[in-house]
C-alpha cells in the first residue's frame, strides 16, 4: 500500500484511489477512417512497462478528479504527479 499525493487534496491513502491505466493514449481524431489495426492499437494494445510508466489515476473516494502519475512499476515508487492537460515531466 502506498500514499498518493492527490494534486487537489494532498496526501491520501491509496485505498481512496482507482487506477485508470496507461496515460496519454490519444482518442482517434478521425474514428471513421481508422483501420482495424489502428482500432486494435487504440483499444487493446498496451505498453505494460516494467519500469517508469505514465498512468492515469482517479481520486474515486475523494474529490473524484482524474490526474496523471509517473510510477516505477518495478518497485511501485511514485516519481511524479501532474494534472490532466499538463505536459508530462521529462524523464
Amino acid at each position: 500500500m502506498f500514499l498518493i499525493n492527490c494534486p487537489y487534496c494532498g496526501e491520501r491513502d491509496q485505498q481512496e484511489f482507482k487506477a485508470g491505466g496507461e496515460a496519454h493514449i490519444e482518442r482517434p481524431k478521425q474514428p471513421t477512417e481508422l483501420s482495424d489495426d489502428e482500432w486494435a492499437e487504440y483499444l487493446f494494445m498496451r505498453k505494460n512497462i516494467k519500469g517508469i510508466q505514465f498512468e492515469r489515476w482517479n481520486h474515486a473516494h475523494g474529490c473524484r478528479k482524474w490526474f496523471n502519475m509517473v510510477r516505477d512499476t518495478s518497485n511501485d515508487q511514485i516519481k511524479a504527479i501532474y494534472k490532466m492537460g499538463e505536459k508530462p515531466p521529462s524523464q
Partner: protein
Amino acid sequence: MRNKYSLFSLIKNALSYHENWQRAWKDPAPKKEYDAVIVGGGGHGLATAYYLAKKHNMHNIAVVEKGWIGGGNTGRNTTIIRSNYLWDASAGLYDHALKIWEGLSQELNYNVMFSQRGVMNLAHNLQDVRDLKRRTHANRLNGIDAVYLSTEEVKKFCPIINTSPDIRYPVLGGTLQRRAGTARHDAVAWGYARGADAMGVDIIQNCEVKGIKRNGDSVEGIETTKGFIKTKKVGVVAAGHSSVIANMAGLRLPLESKPLQALVSEPVKPIIDTVVMSNAVHAYVSQSDKGELVIGAGTDDYVSYTQKGSHQIVEGTLNAILELYPIFSRMRMLRQWGGIVDICPDASPILSKTSIKGLYFNCGWGTGGFKATPGSGDLFAHTIANDEPHKLNAAFNLNRFVSGDLVDEHGAAAVAH
C-alpha cells in the same frame, strides 16, 4: 537413462538413507544452437518442451528460465483445476487440459497429487444465479460435467458455509463441477522438467533473456545472460513478463500485468474437502494436503511487477471468507504472497503465432493459468512444431484483437478477476 519411480525404487533408496537418488534433471550449459527455445521455465513452458519432444520429435530444444523452474506463478497459484467455462472455445481448451490432468501422474511417472475433489462456484445475487445457470447449461452442451445446486444443496455439500439469508452476500445457490479439483503445483513443474530432460531437453536455469535477435521478419536467436543462443523458433511463455519480452522484439501485446495475491493459514485437521469459489465477493478457499487453508484474493487494479499487492485486497477477501465461514474466525495466517498475472482484455489467453516468423507467444492466462498447464503445453507445442495452431487453440490467436472475434470470459467464466 532415467530410473523409474516405483515402490521398488523407494525401498532400494531407503536402504541408502535416500542419499543416492538420481538427479531429476541435469544442469547443462546452453549449446550454441537449438531447433527451438522456450523462454520461461514454469509449468506451461516445461509442458511445452515436454510435448515438443514427446509428440513432435523435437529433442534439440531448450527451456531458459531467469530464476529457478516453477518459481514464478507456477509456485504461487492456489492450484485450482476446473473446466467449467462458458464459451465453446474456452470449454474446448480447458477441458482438453482437464482430460490430460486425469492421467498425468501415470504419464509422467511423477505424482502430481491431482485430486478431483470438486469445485463449487457460489451465487450471491439474482444475476449470479442467472449467469451460473446459463453456464451450467452451456457446460453440459459441451460435454462438461456441471450441476446447479440450491442453497440447501450447497449447505449439504459443504456444511461449514454460512447459508443464513441475513448475511451481507447471502448464498443463493451454486454450481458444482465434480471432475474439477486441485493438484500439487511444484510437482507439475518438476514432473514435466524430469520428463522433458529424459527426452534430451536442456533446462537452463538462472538464464535471463536480454534480447531477441531478428533478421527482418524472422527470429535468429536470443541474447541471454549466458550468451547468445541461435535458434529459428522461440516460444515465449513468460506470464507476467510477456510484455517485457515482447517489447524486446518490438511487438505490442494487449496485456496488463497486475499483482494477484494468495495466502495460507496454519495447518489444521481436514475441515473443507472441496474447493469453493465466490466471484462476487472475490474469495476462494480449499485445504492443502498439509492442512493449510489456501485462500485466493483478487488482483490490484494497477500495473505492477513487484509480486506484492495491496493490503486492502487481502483484507476484503478475508472479510468475505469470515462471513461465509464463521468457523475460520480464529485461524491464523502463516504466509501471504503475490504473483504477477498478465491479463487480456477478454480474460482469455493468447496461444499464437505473431507477425514475426518463428516467434510464438503463450500468455494472457491472467488469474487462472495453472489449471490449463498440460493442455496449454500440448497445444503450444503443436503450434510451434507445425507453425499452425491446433483447432483447439485457433480461437486464441493474437489477431482476435484486430478482428474483434474475442472470447469474452470476463465474469462469464466464474473467475474472480
